[in-house]
């Protein structure tokens, strides 16, 4: 998660997937994730089918594989953990290449790796084809509490500002010879965090006053209608429905 990263999440395009209303895509991805998690781990071919489905969506949306692969780095810590499970797991053991591994642990490791990877790819495709603002409008249409949507809106809008302010403080620290070597340097970082909080909070106050002076009454105006028709719901529903079909067929 590098600073200024979140502009690269969305890949502008005009494909079938991009044009779908965001609320349909949100529901589709969540339903897909639930189907994946509910799949018994022994159904090896079902997971291959899911991967094929996601590859189809990526192809339709013209999201290059490199984009998905680069962003899959977030999964790395748990991949490392998944590799540790067979070694420390309980149950009967087999010896592979001289290492004693737990059979149950191997299954658990496969289970976590497969499901987590499919979930991550689905989320990446969602973020790559949906504008952040659109995603929030979609969440609002799905009856997510108004206040939560507004908080998320403000967070996304000011994230870059806050991150930039943090980056400026880092440049200032480092240009004065600061190097974080061990825990003794932590108080300096903590003071930066304190300064960052004050700046963020005061900016929040200013933003709020500016909004009040422009007629804010507690809810954001909706500028364009993003309602979805049955055809669009069906198009978005194709992914989880196909996944459910794969689950029942294998």
């Amino acid at each position, binding site marked *: *998660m590098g*600073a200024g990263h*979140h502009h690269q999440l969305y890949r502008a395009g005009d494909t079938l997937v991009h044009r779908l209303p965001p609320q349909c895509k949100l529901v589709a991805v*969540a339903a897909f*994730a*639930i189907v994946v*998690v509910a799949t018994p*781990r*022994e159904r090896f071919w079902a997971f291959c089918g899911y991967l094929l489905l996601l590859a189809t969506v990526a192809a339709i949306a013209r999201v290059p594989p490199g984009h998905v692969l680069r*962003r*899959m780095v*977030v*999964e790395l810590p*748990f991949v490392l953990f998944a590799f540790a*499970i067979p070694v*420390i797991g*309980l*149950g009967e*053991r*087999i*010896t592979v290449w001289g290492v004693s591994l*737990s*059979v*149950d642990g191997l299954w*658990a490791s496969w*289970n*976590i790796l*497969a499901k*987590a990877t499919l*979930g*991550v790819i689905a989320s990446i495709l*969602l973020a790559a084809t949906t504008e*952040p603002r659109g*995603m929030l409008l979609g969440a609002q249409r799905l009856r997510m509490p108004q*206040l*939560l949507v507004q*908080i998320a809106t*403000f*967070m*996304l*809008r*000011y*994230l870059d500002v*806050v991150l930039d302010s943090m980056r400026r403080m880092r440049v200032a620290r480092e240009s004065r010879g600061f190097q974080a*070597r061990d*825990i003794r340097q*932590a*108080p300096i*970082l*903590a*003071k930066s*965090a*304190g300064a*960052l909080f*004050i700046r*963020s*909070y005061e900016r*929040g*106050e200013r933003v709020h006053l500016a909004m009040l002076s422009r007629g804010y009454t*507690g809810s954001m105006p909706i500028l364009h209608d993003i309602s979805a028709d049955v055809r669009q719901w069906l198009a978005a529903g194709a992914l989880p429905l196909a996944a459910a079909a794969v689950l029942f067929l294998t």
Partner: protein
Amino acid sequence: MHVPDGFFTASVSIGAAVVAAAGVGVALRNAKQELDDRTAPMAGLVAAFVFAVQMLNFPVAAGTSGHLLGGALAAILVGPYTAVLCIAVVLLVQGFFFADGGLTALGINITLMGIVTAAVAWGVFRLIVRAAPNRGAVVIGSFVAALVSVPVSALVFAVLFAIGGTAPIDAGAVAAAMGGVHVLIGIGEGLITAVTVSSVLAVRPDLVYGARGLARPLVLRTAEGEQVVAPQQQPAEPKPLRPFLVGAGVVSLLLAGIVSFFASSSPDGLEKVAEDKGFLGQAADHLFGGFALADYGDVGGIPVGVAGVLGVLITLAVGLGIGYLVRRKQKVAS
């Protein structure tokens, strides 16, 4: 510590999602008291701050570095309910936009990192500050609150793991490993949280939610003599505290109860694995038919939950001791 998809069974994921939804609902209702009509922009900016602060790496020991989780910090700076909202939003954004943390595990992540952390931190913090309402206690309270909140959150993770984890690892080993590692992380978290709170206190004491009502009343020194200006009406502070403390106490009791339940019935966990294994043995025969099945491995052997109960007792003792010391110091001073 973002849990991905497939790490917990579907039933535990759904249960945690219900808990998270209820917690966020309560927080939504009460956050308006903490921030009145400014809630949306302020909480949004604080959420961005939490997101940014989680990227601030600090070195722990040679070569390794940790980052702030921010639950305790947010609870002390902006109040527990707003903190829950901010962290829930940060996790939602990380899940949907950055693919960090599974979508089906969102409930677990919000429960662990948002609700448990903020609730425990705020409870511990209020206990200490109530014992000695001064600035020193605010800083010490921040340290202890952050220090306690991280391992408790890790222990709740271990409890969830014992109930519905998908990996066949001894629950006691998970609790011991998670608790141990997170005590270390908690020390770093406590240090950074305390210094951050104290630096904000030094510049804008009015912004620290946990330190409201601690400012000395304004004294006007005029020709007629000194006149104390009555402090402004403080927002209704005492009301929400008692139910909160009671709730936190009940939650920690429940936790201790569940942990000790698992401690006394560790054969249950093993039996469950054995059942799975009987079923899995058949499945494995097909795939690994050529391999000779090795002996039953037994890993762990640490009494389940003992580490957890000990940890809770030790942290409680430390917290009470510090509260007592601060209180005595204050009595001497006054």
